[in-house]
């Protein structure tokens, strides 16, 4: 008997070549054993008798649902079967005991060796795990069913006495007008985007370490606030749950389900990257392209949008609504947004994507790729900067990358009406429509004059520009009194502040509403960032309003 099969998948399962290889090698791992074509002629053993083992190989795929050509909504008539890459495949007994395992290559191929004449099931785990120079452990779990891992399971079939092929596909569950079957493709569609992100990042750093990541996806995950275990996740997001980095992905059909909105998945992975691999000081919260945002949030969201464009394509697509036929899209290549500036995520994604991409447009003549962008994210100067992670602190490092022309970078930022320089954005002239927003960081000296800080709700609450003011102070040690006293605005405002040092904040006592906020403590000699705000503008249920305060350090 002669079988024509994929030689790479059969003869050189990825498990044999995995150690020491980064994800970028996965696509080639099965060819690394001997090269050759994708298919060849394989002749099973003919020496007579029963072989000591047989190889089961094949390809794992999932139903991929594309977006419509206008980028709005999903196109179920365009479903294709795409390879499931980089995931764990197991051969198991009927009772679930694992006989052998492999990791699919860049074409979704696997090979496992089992005893002949044994009942074997091939199953695919919704996980990507690699313990090598670059390592990661990423799993898609159902938060509404005990955080269970998804497993795509084949049949329990006898392995026979010769090598065989078992191809498995994870179906979408869409049967023409609705999801009426198990949505088995969902977890693997999510991992498909993650695979691309891992591949791009390991291409620029072959020894990158990703802390464990759990991705919660369920068909019950809806846009409601409540208990994550019930599926009420609010929306797709990145957070930490009990300290564990967690991406939450919607799965609520006819309202908002994101497993095929790969830009959304990669966007959230971008947040995970900044939080766990680099540095991210975002305070999170709702945001849009047109918002004037807290600069930490604007930078984080602009990065996440741009990153999805770098990994996938520049058109961010998010399908929503009945039948998944609606939604919205935007291009991170666009250079024009309302409210441009250091507080606008559109401005920031425009700059970052222009640095990355090879297309020249406007003042963009940079084609630096992901390398310098990654290097800046992980530069010790950026990681250890006193100030927050904002477009200022990031560009201050990025401009020193050899592949990045500081002249062109300055042109890009000027085109977005970002004028400040250095990590503190000194000299910034774009006040976002409200003068108290400048300077970005207000210098204050120990024993010096009071510095006015204001908190307003002009652009919204919690994470919008003007809600919070930043001060920068250098102390030389000793006991210091930090004081924030209201000078204008309605009565009974609630001044609060946090003191930050290299991205970490101190637990501080809090005075009651309507009273000055006064804290006495003895910081070590260093530079500190003070984040001053009116809690009425930052906490749920607060009485919104505008007020200003005198801040002193003595």
């Amino acid at each position: 008997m002669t079988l024509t099969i994929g030689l790479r998948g059969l003869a050189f399962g990825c498990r044999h070549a995995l150690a020491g290889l980064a994800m970028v090698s996965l696509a080639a791992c099965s060819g690394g054993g001997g090269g050759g074509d994708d298919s060849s002629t394989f002749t099973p053993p003919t020496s007579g008798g029963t072989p000591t083992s047989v190889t089961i190989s094949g390809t794992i795929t999932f139903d991929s649902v594309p977006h419509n050509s206008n980028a709005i909504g999903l196109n179920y008539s365009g479903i294709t079967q795409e390879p499931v890459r980089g995931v764990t495949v197991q051969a198991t007994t009927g009772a679930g005991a694992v006989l052998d395992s492999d990791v699919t290559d860049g074409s979704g191929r696997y090979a496992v060796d089992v005893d002949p004449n044994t009942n074997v099931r091939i199953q695919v785990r919704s996980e990507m795990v690699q313990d090598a120079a670059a390592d990661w452990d990423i799993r898609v779990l159902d938060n509404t069913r005990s955080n269970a891992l998804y497993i795509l399971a084949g049949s329990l079939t006898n392995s026979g006495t010769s090598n065989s092929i078992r191809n498995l596909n994870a179906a979408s569950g869409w049967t023409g007008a609705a999801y009426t079957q198990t949505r088995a493709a969902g977890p693997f569609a999510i991992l498909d985007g993650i695979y691309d992100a891992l591949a791009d990042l390991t291409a620029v750093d072959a020894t990158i370490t990703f802390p464990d990541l759990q991705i919660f996806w369920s068909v019950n995950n809806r846009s409601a606030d409540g208990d994550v275990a019930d599926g009420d996740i609010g929306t797709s997001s990145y957070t930490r749950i009990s300290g564990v980095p967690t991406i939450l992905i919607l799965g609520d059909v006819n309202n908002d389900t994101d497993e095929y909105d790969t830009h959304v998945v990669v966007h959230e992975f971008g947040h995970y990257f900044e939080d766990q691999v680099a540095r991210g000081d975002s305070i999170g919260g709702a945001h849009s392209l047109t918002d004037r945002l807290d600069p930490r949030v604007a930078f984080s969201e602009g990065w996440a949008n741009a990153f999805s464009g770098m990994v996938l394509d520049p058109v961010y697509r998010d399908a929503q609504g009945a039948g998944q036929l609606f939604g919205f899209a935007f291009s991170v290549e666009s250079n024009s947004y309302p409210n441009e500036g250091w507080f606008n995520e559109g401005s920031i994604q425009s700059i970052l994507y222009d640095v990355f991409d090879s297309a020249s447009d406007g003042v963009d003549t940079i084609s630096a790729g992901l390398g310098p962008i990654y290097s800046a994210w992980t530069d010790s100067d950026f990681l250890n900067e006193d100030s927050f992670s904002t477009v200022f602190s990031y560009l201050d490092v990025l401009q020193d990358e050899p592949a990045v022309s500081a002249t062109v970078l300055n042109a890009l930022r000027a085109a977005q009406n970002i004028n400040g320089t250095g990590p503190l954005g000194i000299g910034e002239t774009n006040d976002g429509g409200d003068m108290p927003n400048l300077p970005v960081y207000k210098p204050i000296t120990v024993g010096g004059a009071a510095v006015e800080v204001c908190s307003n709700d002009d652009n919204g609450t919690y994470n919008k520009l003007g809600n919070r003011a930043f001060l920068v102070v250098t102390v030389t040690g000793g006991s210091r009194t930090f004081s924030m006293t209201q000078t204008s605005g309605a009565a009974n405002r609630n001044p609060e502040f946090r003191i930050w040092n290299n991205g970490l904040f101190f637990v501080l006592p809090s005075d009651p509403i309507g009273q000055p906020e006064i804290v006495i403590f003895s910081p070590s000699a260093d530079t500190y960032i003070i984040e001053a705000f009116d809690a009425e503008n930052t906490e749920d249920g607060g009485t919104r309003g505008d007020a200003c305060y005198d801040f002193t350090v003595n």
Partner: protein
Amino acid sequence: MNTVLKSSCLAAGAVSLALGGCAQLAFSHATDEAAPVKIGHAEDLAKSTVKSGAAVSFRHTHTGAGRRGTVAFVVSEGYDTGTLTLTATGDEEISVFGAAATQTVDLSDGAEHMWSVDFEAARDGVFYLNVMAVAETKDGIIASRAYAARVQVGEVAAEKAGAGESAATTMPSGETVIMMEAEEVIQ
């Protein structure tokens, strides 16, 4: 004392609300000198970093007698101008009715908008009304955001999510998994 303070705050989730509460456990008055401790990264006190979309958020309450009722939404948005189209839909178990199920809001008319939608449920239970908000600015930028409004009809216990689906399986290793049947071709 500092150790206790740190543990308490972290155990409380260390959200911003907890900061004040935790701090007051440890300090009798803000002006008492103390040695604050660092408790962590911005993420420790942040809300989640949510996906892009329209700058719209929702709150809702619902009232009613029997299986008919009204959901009252408070729609908060962060736009100066443009329009916001709100659409509420139900499903086979809870339906919406009346012209108010779709409403267009002038975004220049304040930052909060009230919106009421009538519904009728087929039975007692916990349901979700699907809401879609599509914002279009005067610059032609369109973004949307979904919301699911939880509505409980009658005195019923909330159904556990996933109750109608296949149960999770415990493997010999102790791991909990969900088995999904593959489309398989064996050659």
